[in-house]
C-alpha cells in the first residue's frame, strides 16, 4: 500500500549529496556544503542521489516539485528530509504547498537539473564569485555567498566559543589515553560516529544529533563527560548551526565514507 515506496523516498542512500533548503516567506533559499548559496534555483547534477535537508525560517511551508512527485513540509526549528535522484536534465517547477500567507501562491522556485560537468562548473564558478549574480544572494547575516560552508562553520565555532571545549586537532589520539583534559568530545571523526551516552544507549552522531546538542545539550550527554555545555538556542541562527554541522562533517580523515568510523579512546571499545 505504498509503504515500501514511502520508506524508499524517505530514506536517502548513504552517498547522497546534501543540500540545505530554507523556506521563508516567500522564497526558497538553497545552501550547498561546498559553498554556494542560491535563491530560487536549486541546481542539482543528473543521476546523483540528492538529499534535501529542509527547514523554515518562519511559518510552515512545503517544498513541492510536481514533476518529481516529491513534497516535504518545511517546519521551523527542525529539519525534515527527502531524497531524490533526477534522471533527466531540464528545469522543473517548485511550488510551495503549505499555505503561508499573502504570497503563498507566488512562492515558486526551480530545480535545474544539469549534467555532472555543468554542475561542477557551476559550483566552481560560484566559489570563484564569477557566476551570474541573478540567482545568488542572501540577506545580511546569512552565510556569505562565496564562503565554503565548512570554513564559515569554523569561523562561527571560534566566535561562539565552541572551540574552548571541543578540539578539532586531527592528530591521532593515543589508545588508552584519558580524556579528561578535554571538556567536551572532540569533533574529529564525530560525524556518523556511534556515540555512547551517559544513559547507556548508543546513538549515531548525525546532523539531527549535532543540531540537538547545540540547542539542548543536556538531553544526550556523552558518557564520560559532564553536562556543562550551555544551550545555543537563540544564539545561533539556522544557517550558522548548519555551517557548524558542515564544519564538523569536514573534520574527517576520509571525507567520503559509508561506514561510521570508530571513535576516540573515551568510547569503550567493545568487540567489533
Amino acid at each position, binding site marked *: 500500500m505504498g509503504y515500501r515506496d514511502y520508506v524508499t523516498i524517505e530514506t536517502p542512500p548513504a552517498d547522497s549529496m546534501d543540500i540545505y533548503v530554507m523556506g521563508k516567506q516567500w522564497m526558497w533559499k538553497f545552501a550547498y556544503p561546498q559553498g554556494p548559496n542560491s535563491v530560487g534555483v536549486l541546481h542539482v547534477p543528473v543521476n546523483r542521489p540528492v538529499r534535501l535537508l529542509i527547514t523554515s525560517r518562519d511559518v*510552515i511551508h512545503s517544498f513541492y516539485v510536481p514533476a518529481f512527485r516529491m513534497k516535504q513540509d518545511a517546519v521551523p526549528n527542525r529539519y525534515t528530509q527527502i531524497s531524490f535522484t533526477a534522471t533527466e536534465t531540464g528545469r522543473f517547477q517548485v511550488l510551495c504547498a503549505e499555505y503561508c500567507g499573502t504570497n503563498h501562491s507566488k512562492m515558486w522556485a526551480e530545480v535545474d537539473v544539469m549534467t555532472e560537468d555543468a554542475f561542477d562548473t557551476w559550483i566552481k564558478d560560484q566559489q570563484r564569485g564569477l557566476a551570474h549574480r541573478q540567482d545568488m544572494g542572501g540577506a545580511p547575516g546569512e552565510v556569505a555567498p562565496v564562503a565554503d560552508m565548512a570554513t564559515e562553520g569554523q569561523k562561527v565555532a571560534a566566535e561562539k566559543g565552541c572551540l574552548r571545549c571541543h578540539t578539532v586537532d586531527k592528530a591521532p589520539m593515543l589508545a588508552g589515553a584519558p580524556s579528561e583534559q578535554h571538556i567536551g568530545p572532540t569533533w574529529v571523526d564525530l560525524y556518523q560516529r556511534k556515540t555512547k551516552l551517559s544513559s547507556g544507549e548508543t546513538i549515531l552522531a548525525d546532523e539531527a544529533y549535532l543540531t540537538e546538542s547545540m540547542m539542548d545539550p543536556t538531553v544526550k550527554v556523552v558518557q564520560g563527560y559532564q553536562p556543562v555545555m550551555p544551550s545555543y538556542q537563540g544564539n545561533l541562527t539556522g544557517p550558522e548551526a548548519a555551517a557548524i554541522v558542515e564544519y564538523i562533517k569536514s573534520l574527517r580523515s576520509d571525507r567520503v565514507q559509508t561506514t561510521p568510523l570508530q571513535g576516540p579512546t573515551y568510547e569503550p571499545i567493545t568487540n567489533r
Partner: protein
Amino acid sequence: MNPSPTAEARVFPAKHYLNDGTTVRSWLLTVDHKRIALLYLISVLVAFALGGFFAMLIRLELLTPGPTIVGPLAYNRLFTLHGMVMIFLFMIPAIPGVFGNFMLPIMLGAKDVAFPKLNLLSWYLYIIGAAILLFGALHGGLDTGWTFYTPYSTTSSTAVSTCLLGAFVLGFSSILTGLNFIVTTHTLRAPGMGWHRIPLFVWGIYATSVIQVLATPVLGLVVLLVAFEHAFGFGLFDPARGGDPILFQHLFWFYSHPAVYIMVLPSMAVVSEVVCAYSRKNMFGYAAVAYSSIGIALVGFFAWGHHLFVSGQSAFAAGMFGSISMLVGVFTAIKVFNWVGTLYRGSITFSAPFAYICGFLFFVVFGGMTGVALATVSLDIAWTDTYFVIAHFHFIMVAATLMAFLAGLHYWFPKMFGKKYPEGWAMLASGIIILGFAATFIPQFLLGNAGMPRRYYEYPAQYQMLNVASSAGASLLAFGFTLVLIYLVIALFQGEYADNPVGSRGFEWLTQSPPITHNFETIPVFTHGPHEYQEVPAEMTEPSHAA
C-alpha cells in the same frame, strides 16, 4: 399500516406543530424538537448560501492565472471563510440539526428528545457562535485557512482569536446535540423497540453523536490554545520558545478527522432511509449497515495522522495511519454493497430523492476510492496539499453529504410540512446539480494530479483550462441549488397536501404529517422493525391520528 399512494385523499390536519402557537416568541422559545429542527433548517440554509457565495467568488477569481476580481489578501480570506462557514455552519450541524432533530424522536416513538431545553440551547449556541465567527471575519478577517496551522495562525494579524472563540462556542452546540441524541436513543425508545429494531437513520445519527461527544472537546482545547497564543502570546506552539507546530497538527487533526465522519455518517443515515423507501424493500443487511456506522466512527478516531504524511513524522507512524485509514473504506464499501443490494429488484419510485441517491452512490464510490488512494502513503506525497485532496473531500462533502441532505429534504418534505414538492422541477434540478457537480470537481482531480497546490491565488498558466472548466461547473451547480430553493419555497405555501406519497414504512410516517406537537397521542408499541414491505404487519398498534 400506511395509506398507499392511491388511498383516498386525506385532509390537511387541523392541528399540528406548525400552528401550535404562532408568535415569534413561541418559535424562539420553543422546546419542540420539530420547531428547533426548522430553526436549524433556516440557519444552515443561510450559512450554505453564504459559503456558496464565497465559493463562487473563489471560482471567479480562479478563472485566470493572475489576479481577476480580488487581491491576494481578500482571496486568502475568501477560502478561509468558505471553509469555516461550510464546515462549521453547514456540514456539521445540517443533517443532525435538521433531520436528526425532527425525525429521531419520532422514529423511536418518543414525544421529544431527552433534554428539550438543552436542544434549544444548542441552537442558540450555534447562532451565537456563528455571530462571533462572522463578526471576526468582518472585523479583521481571517486568512489562516480553516485549518489555522501554527505558527502562521498564531502570528497572523487577522482576527484569529475572535473567530476561534466563535468556533469554540459552535463546538459546544455540537457536543450538546450529540449528547442529547445519545441519551434519547438509550432512554426514550418506545416499548418493543429493541436496539435491533431501531431505524438505520438513528444508528447513523447515534454513531455521529458518539464522535461529536468524544472528538469535539479536543478541538475546543486546540482552539483555546491557539486563541490564547494569538491574543496573549502564550508560546505553546512558538518554535523560538521550543514549541512544536507539529503538536498542533496532531491535536487539530485528532478532532478534524473524526469531524469529517460527523459530516458523512448522517448523510449515509439518510441514504439508508431513502433507499428502503424508494425501492420498497427492507435493508439488505440491517446489522451490517448498523454496525458499519459504529465501525466508521471508531476507526475514524485512529486515522488522523494521514494529514501529516509530509510533516516529518516517522515512516512507521505514517504506515500505521495509512493502513488504518484504508480500513474506513471497508466499512463504507459494506454500506454501498448493502444499499445496492436493497435497490436490486426493488420497486423503484423514480423521483428526485432517488436521483440524488444515484448521484450519491456513484460519486461516493469515486470519492471513497480516491480516499483510499490518498491513504497510500507514497501516493499522498505527490497529492497532499493539492487540488486532488480538494476534489476528494468535495466529492464526499458535496456529492455525498449535500446530495443526501437534498434527498432527505425532498423525501421528508411532506412529513415536515404536509406539502408535495413539484416533481418535474425537482428532477430537473437534481440533474443540473449532478451534472454541475461533476463538471466542477472532476477537473480538480486532474488539476491536483498535474500539480496545482491548494489555496493558490495565482497559479502557473498551464492549469488555466481545467480551472475554467471547474468554474463553469460551479455556475451550473449554483443555478441548480437556487432552483431547488425557489421551488421548495413555492411548494411550502402552494403545494398540495401529501402524507407519505411514496408509501414508506419508516416509523416516522406513523404520525400525521405534519405531526402534532407531542408527536403521538399514545406511544406506539413496536412489534417489528422499520421498512417491512414484504408482509402487511397486521398486529402493529397504530397511534390514533386524532387531531
